[in-house]
């Protein structure tokens, strides 16, 4: 069974997912960071494959993507690195990135390589629902990969229902319509939005991402959903010095204690 489904079916406590960019800060740091995250208590991880034009990302992930590309990261190389992944990591792993690198690699080949590496799902923010349904859904299904969709406070109820129908993993709720790396600002309207989604009783579990950076925002998000995703705050920490692997345990603990 899909590791992601098992996790959501069995875990009682709030779930923490951590995002980082493959090839950052060093070209070969990808699997080491993943292994260290598992050891430190992360429940699943999202590995970003870098793109030259990440329009949904703020400065921190833009910077990590540029450094990763400069370091020489490519999808080809990432899949090579991920051959080690399942020897050291057993929690669910998602790949996250923009559509063009996937298109060039070949969508079917991408799905095949991902499954072979033991990847459980994919988040491609700029692959919209219509194109996914028409052209690529069969391929994701064939390789048993979950495709994760995003929802924002502006997404209509009708569309959320449609997304729920197409999803098979979890639904990624954005804390606000924003690029990555902004701080979650829990206003009355965000609470209204989280509450509204919760009351929809969707068939898929939900996780909140974008703007989750510490224990306070993680706990707040977990009141409404199964848990939350930390990205920019973790990537920022990775960029603060050579002993980044040593700092991962403390980082995870500071959020999920």
């Amino acid at each position, binding site marked *: 069974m899909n590791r992601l489904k098992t996790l959501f079916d069995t875990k009682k406590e709030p779930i923490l997912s951590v995002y980082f960019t493959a090839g950052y800060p060093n070209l070969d740091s990808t699997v080491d960071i993943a292994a260290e995250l598992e050891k430190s208590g992360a429940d699943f991880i999202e590995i970003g494959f870098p793109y030259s*034009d990440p329009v949904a990302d703020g400065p921190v992930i833009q910077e990590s993507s540029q450094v990763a590309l400069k370091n020489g990261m490519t999808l080809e190389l990432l899949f090579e690195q991920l051959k080690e992944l399942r020897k050291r990591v057993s929690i669910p792993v998602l790949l996250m990135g923009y559509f063009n690198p996937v298109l060039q690699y070949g969508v079917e080949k991408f799905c095949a390589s991902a499954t072979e590496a033991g990847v459980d799902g994919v988040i491609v*923010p700029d692959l919209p629902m219509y194109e996914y349904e028409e052209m690529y859904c069969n391929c994701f299904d064939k390789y048993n990969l979950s495709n994760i969709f*995003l929802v924002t406070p502006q997404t209509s109820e009708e569309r959320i229902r449609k997304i729920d129908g197409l999803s098979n993993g979890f639904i990624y709720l954005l804390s606000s319509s924003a690029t990555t790396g902004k701080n979650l600002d829990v206003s009355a309207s965000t609470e209204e939005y989280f509450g509204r989604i919760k009351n929809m009783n969707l068939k898929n579990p939900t996780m909140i991402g974008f703007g989750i950076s510490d224990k306070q925002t993680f706990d707040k998000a977990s009141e409404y959903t199964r848990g939350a995703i930390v990205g920019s705050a973790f990537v920022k920490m990775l960029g603060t010095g050579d002993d980044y692997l040593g700092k991962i345990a403390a980082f995870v603990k500071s959020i999920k204690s």
Partner: protein
Amino acid sequence: MNYHVNEKGYYGDFGGAYIPEMLYPNVEELRSKYLEIMHEPGFQEEFQQLLKDYVGRPSPLFLAERLSERYGANIYLKREDLNHTGAHKINNTIGQILVAQRLGKKRIIAETGAGQHGVATATVCALKGLECVVYMGEIDIERQAPNVARMKMMGAKVVPATSGSKTLKDATNEAMRDWINNPVDTHYIIGSVVGPHPYPDMVARFQSIISEETRWQLKEKTGSESPDYVLACVGGGSNAAGMFYHFLDDANAKLVAVEAAGKGVDSGESAATTMLGKEGVLHGSRSILMQTADGQVIEPYSISAGLDYPGIGPQHAHLYKVKRAEYVSITDDEAMQAGRLLAQLEGIIPAIESSHALAQLEKMTFKANETVVVCLSGRGDKDLATYMKYFNL
């Protein structure tokens, strides 16, 4: 053959709306309303009035006699350079500001490379009293100082794009990020026939006034509304899309789209997208894109900032693929020479973008009495510093 967008937002294999969910509500609002808004009598009346009294349309169709003599054909120039603000870009910004108003938007954002689209956007925002923020690559801000000053003079805020390569592609990324972060009251005026559906179609419709006028002007001047050749330069492709629009179904009219070869198609410093690109997705649409084998976008190069873009609009990708138009490329040097030639034969200093279209004439052979229309997309005032440096003036 259908050359226009279908109900799914595609031109053959190209187009679509490859956008993150954060942009979906705005793009969907626009998609569901743009045609209805554009067809409202009140909209049409205001649009036509502004084109006439503010932009100065119809732009003349000028028979360039000395140029015609040199090339042995009847060469007409469609004078978009005479528009207010000096280029075709304003046809689109007038249209889009009226759409934005009808959508109840209060704040306008835009990207710009050379600054022509930024100026045209700042202009209509001043005209309508809307807040205006223009994203421009840090490098382009330095290269195009007069246009930055024009935007500021009209009250626009010019924000440097400091990410990536700090040019047009990155300014577009920043504008899209702004739109993601301002999901409710902001309209993004895209400056070319690029971006997610419905932008390529909406911008082409606003620019189609170019060929609409050209047809009746030709009829008036030559007795026939159908030319043998229609030429235009292609950055993202908006002046070409407008120049081709009403000729797409005219089998007699051969369409020629001119890309920027920069220092040469194989020099590594080029913007000849159809020659160097492959199918890909950038800025919300599936088209032809200059990119690495790994799908990273390659930074293009052209002496002309307006053609310095790694993609082309999806309709162009389609016209290229089905061979309705011929896509060719012109180097920096060829364009600069053609610019000076027009200045000296006709007393018109063209934008370096437009000089690329003119340079193609040098490579063509015509039969006697053939009729050729070249879109003179803009005037060369903004490029004087480049011409001065190049020719040691």
